[in-house]
Every structure is written in structure tokens, then in C-alpha cells.
């Protein structure tokens, strides 16, 4: 079982991905920080280096052709191998299905699902070589469905099924793959959605319905990612761990 020495995280410029990057770095890992914008990739990697860790910044829009491959190759070259692959890049709007069309679908599925396939396709051999771990940050939207986020739920459901299938394919090579499935997390995406009054009401209702009556902090999701990537989880593979305050059970 590999220690998490070389870690690559998509979407780690902010939110859950940033919290994962900081948590792995704190454990001594070198982290390839992948983010959409140059600025956010540098912000997280600089934060890690200021704390005495080692990180590199890689940026670009993963929905653009060739970007997942370019970024993955860059990350693997800098890391010199791979112990932990975290699929975290994700994005959605909260609005009715009928209000958007194919361009939006392509964007949402491209980022939340296709990017993970493309990255895994290139990174899996390195993960097999290191007997490493893949962790996908999916969503309870993909587990239970979510009005206002139909396309996102479809993509995240796909990501979850993909991760379970990879777990079956590569277990014999000593590679594990699991899913962390957050409910509502206090991230920039939520803040942006809250600026829209209708979306804000949906979010408010979800929080009120939550048994713990609060959102998660990004660090609470990152803790589950770090756990599943650690040797403590060496007998856990192909599973979905929801971090949702009890929003969805069973």
C-alpha cells in the first residue's frame, strides 16, 4: 500500500479541491494543483509552499479538447509517478432543465464526467505501477437526483458508476477506487448560486431539511478523501461515502 506521496487533484484552485490539496500537503505529499484559471492554481500551490510543502500549478479549462491530456502529462512529469488521483473538478448551475440546452449539457458533462475519463485514461498506468488510489468527488445529486441540477446529477451519477467500475477492473493490481459524495458544501459555487434569488431559496430549503441543519465545510469533505486515500482504508474499494449531514441516507 502506497503512502500518499505524489498527489494530483483536478479542480483544486478553490473549495473542496483546495481543501484536499492543503490536507494532502500537510501530510507531506507533493501536490499537482490543477485549476481552471492560472490565478487560482497559483493561489493554492503558493499556499502549500508557504506552509513548507511542495506543489506545482497546472491550469486550463478541462472541457477544451486536449486539455485533460496536457494537464495530466504535465502533472505526471512533475510528480514522477502517481500515488493518489483525485477527480474533483466540477461545476453546475441550479436552474430548471428546460432552461438550458446542448451547449450547457456538453459543458457540465464535459467537466464533471468526460474530464475524469480522460484524466484516468492517461493516469491509470502510473497509478497501477504505484499501487495507488483514485478518489472521485461526486455528489449526492448523482446518488438521489436533484431538481434544478438534472444534468449535473447525470454526470455525477456517471462518475460514481465509472469509479466503481474502475475499482473492479484494477483491484488485482492493488489499486483502490472510491467515491466521496458530498451534499451541500460551503464553496464559491454555492455563493454564486445564492446570488440568484430562486436558487438561494432552493439552497435554503435544502439546509433546513438537513438533519444537522448546516452545510459542510470543504475541510470536512477533504477529510473523507484523505481517509479513503490512506492505508487506513486499505480494505475499502468500490464504495460511495456520503458526507452530507444526513441529507440522503441508504
Amino acid at each position, binding site marked *: 500500500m502506497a503512502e500518499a506521496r505524489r498527489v494530483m487533484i483536478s479542480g483544486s484552485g478553490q473549495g473542496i479541491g483546495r481543501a484536499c490539496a492543503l490536507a494532502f500537503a500537510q501530510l507531506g505529499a507533493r501536490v499537482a494543483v490543477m485549476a481552471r484559471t492560472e490565478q487560482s492554481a497559483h493561489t493554492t500551490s503558493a499556499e502549500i509552499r508557504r506552509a513548507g510543502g511542495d506543489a506545482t500549478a497546472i491550469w486550463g479549462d478541462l472541457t477544451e479538447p486536449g486539455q485533460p491530456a496536457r494537464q495530466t502529462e504535465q502533472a505526471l512529469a512533475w510528480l514522477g509517478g502517481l500515488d493518489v488521483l483525485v477527480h474533483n473538478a466540477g461545476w453546475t448551475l441550479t436552474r430548471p432543465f428546460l432552461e438550458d440546452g446542448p451547449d450547457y449539457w456538453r459543458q457540465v458533462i464535459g467537466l464533471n464526467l468526460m474530464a475524469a475519463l480522460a484524466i484516468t485514461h492517461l493516469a491509470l498506468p502510473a497509478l497501477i505501477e504505484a499501487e495507488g488510489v483514485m478518489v472521485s468527488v461526486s455528489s449526492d445529486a448523482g446518488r438521489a437526483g436533484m431538481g434544478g441540477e438534472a444534468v449535473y446529477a447525470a454526470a455525477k451519477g456517471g462518475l460514481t458508476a465509472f469509479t466503481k467500475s474502475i475499482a*473492479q*477492473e484494477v483491484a488485482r493490481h492493488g489499486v483502490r477506487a472510491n467515491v466521496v459524495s458530498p451534499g451541500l458544501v460551503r464553496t464559491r459555487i454555492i455563493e454564486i448560486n445564492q446570488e440568484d434569488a430562486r436558487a438561494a431559496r432552493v439552497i435554503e430549503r435544502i439546509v433546513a431539511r438537513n438533519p444537522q441543519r448546516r452545510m459542510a465545510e470543504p475541510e470536512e469533505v477533504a477529510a473523507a478523501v484523505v481517509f479513503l486515500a490512506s492505508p487506513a482504508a486499505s480494505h*475499502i474499494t*468500490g464504495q460511495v461515502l456520503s458526507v452530507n449531514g*444526513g441529507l440522503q441516507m441508504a
Partner: protein
Amino acid sequence: MEQSQELRGKWALVTGASRGIGAGCALALAARGADIAVHYHRQRDAAEQIVAEVGAMGRRAALLQADLAQPQEVTAMAEAFQRVSPQLDVLVLAAAATAFKRVEEIRPHHLAKTYNLVVGGMVQLVQEVLPSIGPGGRVIAISGQGTDFTLPGYALLGSAKGAMEVLVRYLARELGGRQITANCISPGVVDTDSARFYAQDTYPEFVARVAAATAVGRIGTAADVAAAVCFLASPQAGYITGQVLVVDGGLGLSSLPFMNQDTSP
């Protein structure tokens, strides 16, 4: 790897802690700094050994005896714990006992024994210790593969553990506002006395079959399950509640007719 001491100053009560998964949980929680109340039913020597090992780690330990199927014994045990500590942080429900029967062979006394212990004992113990559990508290129940899959002779315990999973969800809902979480760990096949009892003389062959059907290629250990319990007990896991975390090495991912087909690339 240096063990985190994030449970320092917390008390964990582990039922069925003399052997197997319960013993593994008691030792792993102690290794992370928790003080441990070790519950046992019959195996006093084994339980005393766990108490001694917890003590050797520099943690406090208390020995609690009870038949959890007997309400007056649960009450006495909860009172005994409250004399040890006014506060409980982590309750781990690992105790179980059953008869391995086909449904048509189950007799009323079999039902009473397993359900009174696994379901009745859980509800009553939670009720009795809940006043001692504050925000940040954890209820962690050990369920099992027999709730989602039909295993030979496992109907009685599987159905009782199914009830345990449902009760955990209700607890998660009802205690959520107090920031107390409730979750289940669902192990696959774990190398314990119980697994040996289940498989009888065929145990070595059983272990080989389990390893062959398990994605990671081996039977589980109490330490595997305990590591997941420790994570759920940790302060970082405060937003995980009402969940069943499967710790089975991928055993449940494969279907029997396909289990010898290698799907690896």
C-alpha cells in the same frame, strides 16, 4: 506512521469488545488516545486482556459485563459506566450473537436471543447513555454484508443488522440537530472467532474462497474495520451521518457466477 492522538480525552464504550471486531475497535480507538469502556458478556479473560492492553497504551480502561439482551443488565451497565465517566463520546455497537439457521428452522428462542441483543440491546443502550453524549458525539454500529446480500444461514442476524442500519438512520435524523452522528460500518468477511464459528471445519477453504471473491484478494481483518470506525469517530467526520460505510475489500462488487472471471486489463 505516527498515530494521531485526536481522540485524547474522549471516552469510547465498545460493546462486544472482548474479541474480534469489537476488540480491534477498542485497541484502535485507544491507540488514537481514547479511554475505553470494554463491554463483554462471557469472555472475561479475553476482556481483561483488552483492558490490560489499553492500560499499557497509557489510556484509562473500564471493564463492563452485561448480557445486552437483558434490560436490567443494560441498565446496570449504563449506571456502571456513568460511575466511571459522566461523559461518553463514542458508542461502538459490535456485540452480536445468533444461531445460523434457514428461515424455516428459526424457533422463537432464536429470534428472541438475536433480536433482543442486536436490536433491543442497541435501542436500550443508546437510550441509557444518550444523556452522557454531547455535541460531537458518535454512534457507530457494526452491521454486515448479510443485510444487502443473502448469505447461507444468515437470515436471523442479517435481518437484525438490517434493523440496526434503519435505526442508525433514524438516530442520525433525530440527533442531527445536536451534532451527534450515527453511522454503520458494514464489513465483508472478517477473520474473527465468529467467522470461524460460521464456517466450522471448512474455515481454511472458506477463507480461500472469500479471498478469491474479494477484489483486493484477501479476507478482512478487525484492524481494517477498526480503522474505518476510528475515522468516523474523528472530529473531521462530523458531517458524515446516517451512512453505511462498506469495508469489504470489494467482496460485494462481484456476483458469484462471475467471481472467477478476471476483469482486470
